[in-house]
């Protein structure tokens, strides 16, 4: 690792100020960032830990019934604390990485990184969540802009993420056997006003909504509704672990399983 200064502010305002410094970078749980630093693939001058800001931690239920999760809340905390308020999201959080990674990794860090195979982007996009930063609120549909790319500005911090709670939802993750990220992960959420299907792990453009499946499911919510639907594999990721066609196939299988789980 290149060396850097370490700061651990206790308020969002102090964090924002610290991130205004030259080549300063936010540190969530560090479960992706620290390995990246070890490879010397990043060289921040200052790392600003968001782990010491009490107002950015925890899960709470808003007046409108939505679930709000502080940006520095760990996956383990979400898995434990959202069980009753948003069980599908809690289940997703409980499938990220491994127990020790879940004790450090945070929702804000995961969503800001937008790894194309990460779980949370699917949960956020599939839920139609709102990403709340120190300056604004961004709809998930506008937030994820492609692999490792988001609508966040330099120095902007995800302070919380607000999830509307669907009638039913399910995350179906097919493991990449080495990293245990998603080879394909499908988050399906059924709301009164429609179904959302978000797919991670599959596309070179990162997380995306499978709109054809949503349309079909809005007409008829059952696994058979996908019969005859084939997702275009042209933009799918091809690597050691699976071809484009295989990933496209898995998107269908995982979506069907998510539907089943929601029935």
């Amino acid at each position, binding site marked *: 690792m290149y060396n850097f200064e*370490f700061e*651990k502010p206790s308020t969002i305002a102090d964090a924002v100020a610290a991130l205004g410094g030259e080549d300063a970078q936010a*540190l969530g749980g560090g479960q992706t960032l620290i*390995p990246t*630093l070890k*490879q010397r693939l990043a060289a921040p001058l200052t790392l600003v*830990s968001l782990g010491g800001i009490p107002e950015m931690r925890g899960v709470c239920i808003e007046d409108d019934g939505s679930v709000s999760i502080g940006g520095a809340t760990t996956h383990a905390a979400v898995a434990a604390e959202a069980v009753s308020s948003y069980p599908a999201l809690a289940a997703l959080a409980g499938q990220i*990485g491994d127990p020790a990674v879940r004790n450090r990794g945070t929702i804000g860090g995961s969503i800001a990184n937008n790894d194309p195979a990460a779980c949370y982007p699917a949960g956020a996009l599939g839920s139609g969540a709102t990403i709340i930063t120190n300056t604004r609120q961004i709809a998930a549909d506008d937030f994820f802009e492609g692999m490792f790319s988001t609508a966040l500005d330099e120095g902007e911090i995800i302070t919380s993420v607000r999830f509307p709670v669907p009638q039913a939802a399910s995350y179906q993750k097919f493991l990449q056997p080495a990293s245990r990220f998603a080879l394909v992960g499908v988050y399906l959420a059924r709301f009164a006003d429609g179904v959302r299907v978000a797919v991670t792990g599959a596309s070179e453009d990162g997380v995306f909504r499978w709109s054809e499946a949503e349309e079909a499911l809005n007409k008829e919510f059952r696994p058979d509704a996908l019969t005859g639907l084939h997702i275009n594999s042209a933009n799918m990721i091809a690597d050691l672990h699976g071809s484009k066609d295989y990933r496209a196939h898995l998107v269908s299988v995982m979506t069907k399983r998510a539907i089943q789980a929601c029935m």
Partner: protein
Amino acid sequence: MTKVSMTVNGKTVSGEAEGRTLLSGFLRDHLNLTGTHVGCDTAQCGACVVHVNGEAVKSCNMLALEADGADVGTIEGQANADGSLNVIQQAFQDHHGLQCGFCTPGMVMSAAALLKENPRPTEGEIRKYLEGNLCRCTGYHNIVKAIMAASGQDVGSIAAE
């Protein structure tokens, strides 16, 4: 260099650390607690698992300065007060849950964290919980068996020792 203080295995310690000093490095190099091992650089293998404020974390994937003020537990602090092996350690020895011993500290620390949150895990729950701990020697058979035994379950029916 920044001053950092923490409680490690019940003792208050302090030292100097750079921003980039990892908790694993601080434990090994500054405190000479070399029981915590480093087996990878991508947070996969779990040989470095320690407890920070009671939770299992990968100490090679956490900065020492992030642990400032924390209560840290390592493998060196696991034995009983009289120096005898604790229940988990003893079960690992009784059931041959280790061979080369390199992954073992992380396995024991993860097992302790598991049993704290789930005192009587099933075989499947143990295997799932150990997702972040790699062992290349045992094929996991005797590790899983040892953890079941440590939780008070009868392992007599599981195939040979």
